[in-house]
């Protein structure tokens, strides 16, 4: 029963989040320049004020201490306060997360469908001209940085989700073409063709169901791709989401906000990957 995998996935998620948070805090702690505040460069401040600013960061110097205090707060629903915006991080998430989730959901759905529909004929029929055209198209979008795509979409008057879809589709196209091509070369598919079954029936009854677990996994990976692309795209498109918040936090060296965002995105991507994995297992189980 595929349900027996659920506790294992939840355990893995919790463990990864805890370890990932610690890793994030460690990386931040040992990054060059940790504890340096840009207010220290303000020539109007005297040495006592600068010392006071330095002292205000002293509690963050012990990684485990910093992380322990953070986890305690987390259990009480307190994610800390953003140092640059001077507002509770939880409040910022509540404002920004829905917008990002909406654009990522639209972007992943659009990009996945476009990439998958483009890959279907490429894998099934192997038309040379179509193969070349789709390879050039996906290759071109693979070469463009997400931020440049975001700029192009801004100038074209499009939405941020469209730029996310354009980042996701070439990768989905390439992977799903390979997955479908491999499934289409299986002996039972060749046998079905040899017995004269209609190509559409072969596709729907034999190729797609057997490629489905891997396609589910690809959908899960697309979510993390989309979140990765959301930072430059939201920053460039001036879209009020988590990506833009991360960029602003990075520019203003807002440590509490950055660690929380990293953890939040880790949880979302892990949950998406676990869900796709479980869907794939459930689907494979149903087929048996």
């Amino acid at each position, binding site marked *: 029963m595929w349900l027996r995998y659920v506790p294992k996935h939840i355990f893995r998620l919790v463990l990864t989040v805890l370890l990932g948070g610690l890793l994030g805090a460690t990386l*931040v702690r040992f990054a*060059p320049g940790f504890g340096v505040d840009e207010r220290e460069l303000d020539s109007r401040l005297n040495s006592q004020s600068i010392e006071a600013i330095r002292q205000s960061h002293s509690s963050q110097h012990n990684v485990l201490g910093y992380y322990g205090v953070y986890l305690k707060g987390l259990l009480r629903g307190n994610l800390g306060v953003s140092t640059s915006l001077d507002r509770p991080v939880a409040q910022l998430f509540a404002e920004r997360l829905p917008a990002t989730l909406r654009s990522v959901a639209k972007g992943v759905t659009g990009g996945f469908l476009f990439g998958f529909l483009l890959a279907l004929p490429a894998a099934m029929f192997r038309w040379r001209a179509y193969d070349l055209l789709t390879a050039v198209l996906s290759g071109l979008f693979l070469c463009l940085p997400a931020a440049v795509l975001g700029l192009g979409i801004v100038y074209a008057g499009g939405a941020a989700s469209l730029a996310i879809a354009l980042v996701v589709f070439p990768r989905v196209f390439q992977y799903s073409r390979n997955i479908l091509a491999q499934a289409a070369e299986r002996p039972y598919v060749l046998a079905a063709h040899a017995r004269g079954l209609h190509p559409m029936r072969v596709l729907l009854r034999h190729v797609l169901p057997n490629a489905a677990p891997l396609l589910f996994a690809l959908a899960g990976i697309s979510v993390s791709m989309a979140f990765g692309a959301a930072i430059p795209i939201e920053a460039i498109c001036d879209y009020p989401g988590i990506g833009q918040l991360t960029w602003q936090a990075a520019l203003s060296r807002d440590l509490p906000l950055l660690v929380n965002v990293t953890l939040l995105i880790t949880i979302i991507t892990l949950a998406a990957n676990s869900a796709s994995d479980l869907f794939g297992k459930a689907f494979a189980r149903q087929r048996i």
Partner: protein
Amino acid sequence: MNRVRRLAVILLIATFTAVLFADFVAPAPYAKQFREAPNAAPSGKHLLGTDDLGRDSFSRLLYGSRVSLLLAPAAALLSTLIAACIGGLAGYLGGRFERLALAATDLSLSLPWLFLLLTVRALLPLNVSPLASVTITFALLGALGWSSSGRIICSGARAIRQSDFVLQAQSLGISPYRLLLRQILPNLEPVLAAQFWTSIPIFIIAEANLGILGLGVAEPLPSWGNLLRGLENWPEVKASPWKLAPILMLVAVVSCFQLVFQKREEFAS
């Protein structure tokens, strides 16, 4: 397709030669300002015109390409080395070490590395020199981008460890050190090379994204990332299309990398 691949190789060699000899090819140093000619159109003196500060755009493109094209392979080398150490040893040793290394790889894969990269990159000292900023940026890219390569190298090393010739060598009493050096590593070379070459365009694009966001290489040192910031002023780009040169060059070089090394990756996988 072979002809296209050959053309891509020629383009890559030409680009690398031009950027390596940028000191001789570029008409001016990258930071030199021609204050009498800011935002100049292309001419015999300035092949791609000048930027807002009167710096020669062609020279900046050449030097920027040098930064991106020399440091992205360095970052790829670092990430492949880390991946080879962790993944290669895990695949070779197997057992608990492999499980531990794979768990570490999974953990690293599940962390959104661009978010981590932004976090660490943003915490660099404010007064960091351009040279230090470029080195740190690419070192971070290399240090954080090893996990997917690590998994592939681990499965490659595991397949070699379980192969007949390794079993035969072990039955003949070969020492583990000699087995690693003489049998495992030479057979792992195609996988390592494929991971190295395919990482280069990934790091070039990652640096470009960071650069556009203002978190990449610090001015006045040019890189493709900070040169692409010029695209943010669309009316100006529309009026002066030669300002598209950095993105065209980036797309051309990354496409060439993909064309040339696609076969290697397929072979290795």
